[in-house]
């Protein structure tokens, strides 16, 4: 299943002078513990080859969502978000993919791999990430997963991470743009028994330790964290690259392994495992639009009058 690191790493590097650093080792076979066993981080570390110049393997969680430009709709039967149309990569995940590619590049080698959970064997969003430079992915697609809550999603993605043999670092966005529950990265960390730093707005690796500026209500915290670890990154943490034509062509042939929930040993899933049910959907009271005027150069006066009426000025 794993291809040699050399093939992938060359594709994702921007700096071709680094190429000679690659090709020294292939990921060792890693031991994958079953879910529910005592959390233990050591199995993640088995192919680390020291702090200097070791390969850095990163797994990015990629969500494929309905086009955010199109108006969202609920399925009348299930009251869940309709996901039967074409799906695209969640913009929020582009930052994680870019961050992963940059960290691997800075480490001098390694692989960026993907995990995703989506209906209907959807891979178009994953292909975007592969075109940016990721090497391969695991897609969990299974009708049984419909209605799954965030906790089940986290268990599924954690199991997919294990299926890939783990990584030094797992990156997710802080929340998806369609469901925005916002708990999956931290839940994955707990399932995997790993430390985590959420809301990372700046990330670097120093001697095998993550240095993260973590967003807070009033500013940010400087946080250090050993790897393996899970981080969630804010939008804007890096500038995502545009996939090159070569990258897009190469992505068509990169492997995506599709599995079912049962292949990963996660039960129960879907509504059965959700711990919640949709009990009603209602329209909120709509806010009415007021007066709309075209600026003729004097519209500022309208605002002054409006503020006067409200006694704000």
């Amino acid at each position, binding site marked *: 299943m794993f291809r040699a690191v050399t093939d992938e790493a060359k594709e994702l590097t921007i700096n071709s002078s680094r190429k000679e650093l690659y090709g020294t080792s292939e990921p060792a076979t890693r031991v994958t513990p079953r879910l529910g066993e005592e959390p233990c981080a050591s199995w993640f570390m088995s192919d680390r080859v020291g702090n200097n110049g070791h390969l850095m393997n990163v797994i990015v969680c990629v969500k494929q969502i309905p086009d955010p430009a199109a108006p969202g709709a609920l399925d009348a039967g299930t009251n869940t978000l309709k996901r039967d149309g074409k799906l695209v990569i969640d913009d929020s995940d582009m930052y994680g993919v870019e961050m992963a590619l940059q960290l691997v590049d800075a480490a001098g080698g390694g692989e960026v791999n993907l995990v995703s959970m989506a209906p209907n064997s959807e891979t178009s969003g994953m292909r975007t990430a592969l075109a940016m430079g990721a090497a391969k992915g695991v897609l969990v697609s299974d009708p049984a997963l419909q209605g799954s809550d965030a906790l089940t999603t986290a268990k599924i993605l954690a199991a997919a991470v294990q299926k890939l043999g783990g990584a030094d670092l797992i990156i997710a966005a802080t929340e998806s743009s369609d469901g*925005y529950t916002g708990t999956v990265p931290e839940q994955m960390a707990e399932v995997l028994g790993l430390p985590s730093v959420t809301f990372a707005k700046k990330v670097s690796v120093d001697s095998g330790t993550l240095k993260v500026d973590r967003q807070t209500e009033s*500013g940010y915290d400087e946080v250090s964290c050993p790897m393996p670890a899970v981080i969630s990154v804010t939008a804007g943490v890096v500038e995502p690259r545009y996939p090159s034509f070569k990258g897009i062509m190469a992505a068509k042939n990169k492997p995506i392994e599709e599995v079912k929930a049962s292949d990963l040993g996660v039960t129960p899933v879907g509504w059965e495992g959700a711990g919640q049910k949709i009990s009603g959907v209602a329209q909120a009271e709509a*806010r009415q639009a007021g007066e709309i*005027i075209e600026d003729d150069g004097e519209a500022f006066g309208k605002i002054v009058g409006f503020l006067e009426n409200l006694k704000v000025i």
Partner: protein
Amino acid sequence: MALNNIWVFAQAANGAPTSATLELLTKARSLSSNVTAFMGGDGNSIAATLGEYGATKVYSVDHGSNLPGVAIASAMKSVIDGGDKPDLIMFPQNYEGRDTMSRLSVKLNKTVITNNIDIADSGDGVTTVTPIFGGNTLVSTTFTGEGPFLAAFRPKSFAPEASGGGAAAVTAVQVPDLGATGGAKVLAVHVEETTGPKLDEADVVVSGGRGLGESDKYVLVEDLAKILKGAPGASRAIVDAGWVPYSYQVGQTGKVVKPSVYIAAGISGATQHMVGMKGSKNIIAINKDKEAPIFGIADLGIVGDVHKVLPKLIEALKSR
């Protein structure tokens, strides 16, 4: 099922409970007479206020240099294992609330329902209300199975109101051994200085968006906010672009504001943004694109160029 025992994830800032904490305590005591505040840091200094808003008991956890979420979740689990089992834990929809409820949900194998604006106990089910599609649609979700139910609430969902209760009794809870999960440590804390009223408390908010064109035009927004004794805010787009710090962001992933007047300058009105400001009493929008969604909720909409309208407005207000 009856909610006999409710916990509220409590937080303090500048020596006082946060407004989100007081909002949740107020709601919690309308659902149960047995309300516990569970907080990181020293509970003794704010036990009186927590009691005044309905907490009868406080658990406090000194999490040291650990990130709060993983440490407080482990402490919660140890108290639950020790026999004090809540039926519902209410979290604020913010960084630490999200982290804590996420860790705890795995430890307890319980679902989480986030982004709520209300909760009710009908006797045969506990149901939360979540706005979706920018707040156009309200989804009711009912917990199934046994508690503890874990729910997070958006800021300003409930109006805080003191009940006149006495100081709550404080019990210190130790952080259990976190093993590998406790690897992340806070090395330094940075506070971004702000002047003027706080964004989420200001009576007037002036926000800027990508329509400003470039970062040095944001000063127009700051000037107008200052004249109106308000706070400057921003759309996610210009925060992501690095024009202003995250603490300025209004919206789904930023601050929720409900000022008397909200002025949106060069903001088109993405769902992300509207969720954070559509509760404002009066909304003024200035945008070049007359099709911009923001005009759908504005009380006064000016179709025009912010670079022309704002300087004239600022000049007119200055000369008064």
